[in-house]
């Protein structure tokens, strides 16, 4: 957060950052973009390959229709217009991870154009990021550079793994509408929620199914755009923010020294938190794009687009509105829940089971999220499912458990996998709410402590606390506190 404040400080010194993002989303189709190999992660090298994705002589691509459908979903969810006719282009360049020496991608006729995403910040304010385009392409393979650095420079040799080669990707390019690293992070977080909600990608930055590059330039507010750099290698939300901060600072330092920013690719090093220029864009490739002659154009007629639109789930923005309206949640809680489809589904099931949205939201955003985050689990992997948690909440409502005890039971549920009632029974945790039983305990305690009882009668109200403590000690903390209080006041008076 410190770095953030520094940047903000510098930004207020008269500089404005202009940021556009290029996001790659790996689609979770069963098979690859242009062949029938499985899309996988973490398999042994070169086991999910075939002549087509290895670029053998004579092979031809065939478009994965599911990938087109998924890309259409993303385009529609981002409010893009979907092209009636879209074509693939070849992007030509040599690299050992690119078997055909061209990437089948899209160029001047992308699938989706001119959309936007409205992003809500923590303070409740909203800003709109324009979406320039959404297009489909294929992923490259992966190179493993053997040698100390792990980078290609200085490597002894490099190994190529083509398992990832040909995986369907959707590239999303934003307009340069982002002004701060905070906004960039908020945008990407909410974009991820959106794609997650569509269930078309795992959108996992660490595993590379969500990748983000940034174009960054600086200017004095109101001035024309400055020279931009392309910032790469930010493979987490935190690194996106830190990378942007570092690059903005580097550019400000550069400009304040009276130097020019050189158009280049900048690499973020997460270990040092610094950025370094890779290569000048002047030597950039001429990709010699031309229409891919091996593939027919994709015709997406209106009825197709409408069918896909109709199949879209409730998107986070709409869900947030509904959570506020139907459950009376705060905007902040609603945004958090709506951003996670699984969690908000969980919440809604829970709220309808318990009949109390407030308490349900507190449990989901409190204990449940705490446990999931600590264990690094997705809500779908939670040991405690919504009906089980509803039962636990029911035990609080009917007075069997205190709030504090319920949290302990929840922990026990998580570790043991047992349901709330069996844990309460096993541990004898049920709250003592039997009036007769409590009454006799209270009388015993008063009798055993004549001194404090006398103090109360002389007007010292504070000793009630002492008596409550004694009762709790007798009952191992299981007495219903409200009832104990009432009984003490009655018998001490």
């Amino acid at each position, binding site marked *: 957060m410190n770095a953030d404040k520094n940047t903000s400080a510098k930004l207020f010194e008269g500089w404005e950052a202009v940021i556009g993002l290029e996001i790659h989303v790996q689609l979770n189709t069963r098979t690859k973009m242009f062949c029938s190999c499985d899309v996988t992660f973490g398999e042994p090298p070169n086991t999910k390959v075939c002549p087509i994705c290895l670029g053998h002589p*004579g092979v*031809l*691509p*065939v478009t994965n229709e599911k990938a087109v459908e998924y890309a259409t979903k993303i385009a529609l969810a981002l409010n893009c217009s979907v092209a009636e006719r879209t074509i693939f282009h070849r992007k*030509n360049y040599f690299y*050992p991870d690119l078997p055909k*020496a061209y990437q089948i991608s899209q160029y001047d006729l992308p699938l989706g154009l001119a959309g936007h995403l409205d992003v809500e910040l923590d303070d409740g304010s909203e800003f709109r990021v324009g979406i320039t385009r959404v297009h489909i392409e294929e992923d490259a393979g992966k190179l493993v550079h053997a040698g100390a650095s792990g980078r290609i420079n200085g490597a002894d040799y490099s190994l190529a793994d083509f398992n990832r080669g040909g995986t369907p990707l959707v590239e999303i390019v934003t307009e340069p509408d982002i002004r701060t690293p905070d906004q960039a992070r908020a945008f990407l977080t909410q974009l991820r929620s959106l794609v997650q909600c569509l269930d078309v990608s795992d959108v996992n930055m660490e595993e590379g199914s969500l990748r983000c590059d940034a174009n960054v330039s600086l200017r004095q507010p109101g001035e024309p755009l400055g020279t931009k750099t392309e910032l790469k290698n930010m493979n987490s939300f935190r690194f996106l923010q830190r990378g942007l901060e570092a690059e903005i600072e580097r550019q400000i330092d550069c400009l304040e020294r009276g130097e020019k920013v050189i158009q280049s690719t900048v690499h973020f090093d997460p270990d040092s938190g610094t950025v370094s220029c890779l290569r000048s864009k002047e030597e950039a490739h001429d990709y010699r794009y*031309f229409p891919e*002659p091996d*593939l027919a154009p994709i015709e997406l007629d209106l009825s197709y687009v409408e069918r896909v639109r109709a199949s879209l789930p409730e998107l986070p923005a709409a869900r947030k509105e509904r959570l506020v309206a139907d459950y009376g949640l705060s905007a902040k809680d609603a945004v958090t829940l709506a951003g996670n489809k699984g969690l908000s589904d969980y919440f809604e099931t829970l709220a309808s089971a318990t009949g109390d949205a407030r308490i349900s939201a507190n449990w989901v955003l409190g204990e449940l999220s705490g446990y999931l985050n600590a264990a690094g689990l997705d809500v779908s992997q939670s040991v405690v499912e919504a009906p089980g948690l509803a039962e636990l909440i029911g035990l609080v409502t009917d007075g069997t458990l205190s709030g504090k005890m319920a949290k302990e039971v929840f922990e026990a549920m998580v570790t043991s996998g047992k349901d709330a009632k069996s844990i309460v029974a096993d541990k004898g945790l049920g709250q003592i709410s039997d009036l007769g039983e409590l009454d006799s305990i209270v009388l015993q305690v008063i009798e055993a402590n004549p001194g404090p009882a006398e103090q109360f009668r002389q007007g010292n109200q504070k000793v009630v606390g002492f008596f409550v403590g004694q009762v709790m000690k007798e009952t191992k903390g299981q007495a219903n506190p409200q009832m104990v209080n009432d009984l003490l006041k009655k018998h001490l008076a």
Partner: protein
Amino acid sequence: MAINVQGLTAHACRDLLASREVSSTELTQAYLDRIDEVDGRIQAYLLVDREGALEAAAAVDAKAPDQRKPWEGVPIALKDVLCTKGLETTCASRILKGYVPPYDATVVAKLRQAGLVFLGKLNMDEFAMGSSTENSAYQVTRNPWDCDRVPGGSSGGSAACVAASEAPWALGTDTGGSIRQPASFCGVTGLKPTYGAVSRYGLIAFASSLDQIGPLTRNTKDAAALLDLIAGRDPLDSTSTGLNEPAGIPTRGDLEGLRFGVVSELTGEACDPGVREVFQSAVDAIESVGGVCEPVSLPSVERGVAAYYLIAPSEASSNLARFDGVRYGHRSKHAEDLYEMYIHTRSEGFGAEVKRRIMIGTYALSAGYYDAYYAQAQRTRTLIIKDFEEVFRRFDYVISPTAPSVAFKIGEKVSDPLAMYLNDLCTIPVSLAALPGISIPAGFSAGMPVGLQIVGPHFSEHGILNAAHAVEQRLALDLVPPLEEVCG
């Protein structure tokens, strides 16, 4: 029994097998013997798969005949641009020396399924780039009508092999004339199907929007039969459509009621006098069996060669980029780093013509030149397509000589690429318009064969083959080259 394979058609082979007079093993052995006898002179084969062929033939002989597979046991040879699983496929290039494909091209799989016996892989211009087969990295194939002359190209090995009866028939590929021109030069029948009629899966790409696989045969009946064996929509090739109707067996003997447009731009000064003479005799033959021939102008075809030599190299520059030494084929031993590996591998692996076209194509697609070259060529292509559409409103077919000359001398044009390119003047516009075209022998000029090209609307293969059949019957040429005299 001793089989004389000289002049034997595939249909004749089939009849011999069906009559049980000869076994597939005997027939296959007879062709292998013929190859042993003459291929030292013709050099049509890059690879003869004796073992594989005899094994496949023995397998056919060992089982009961299958009525659904009439061509079972009939031998065939394949241009070396078609991937054959387990059998080296080089495209006549050093860069693919030793490359053994892990899969069969769709056409190869279809023929295998139909029980045909593969004799081997045939020579060609490297990556199908050329009109004489002199661009092969391995050998120069001779024209069986005159061994000092080229067989044409790029399917020169296929045409020479069929002409010399080293196989009853063969598959070739045609991008701008690579089936039809060598067929014309070697006195055989060559059909380039409508773009999309035959799957390109496993055809090592030269120019994807133009490449088609087709038959080279001794007559139109064999061409029709082979086309029907290989045509069809293929889920592995998104650009494939198959034929609307099978080619069937052409039987037509007359041309009553058919109108033939004689393309003025391709029949005048553009062609050698000897070729014009033979072509005129073909026109006479068409008219003598009832066809009507009238001159027609196709002004845009004259720009065909220019457009073709931008579009085809552009696509080739991209298609051939995968030969980078990383995964298969040649890799230079003289490289210290990645970029040296690329540069040396490709410098050592590709021949001069391939390099020339990669450079032309790379240039034509470059930023700042794309509109002037590639895009402009595509507009020309559209004009040619429209010109043909217009002509087919008035004519059933258009005809021209297949090539402006007869087969030229080996070495004659190697140092003049432009003269070599102009060889495809008559065939290129047909390829650009994605139309089907056939070349059949129309006669001889000074002892060398001259081809007649018949072109029809998209998917008119059935009609073209029948029209060609009528002309073939009328001309009744003797098409067995006197090999002993000319290539002694």
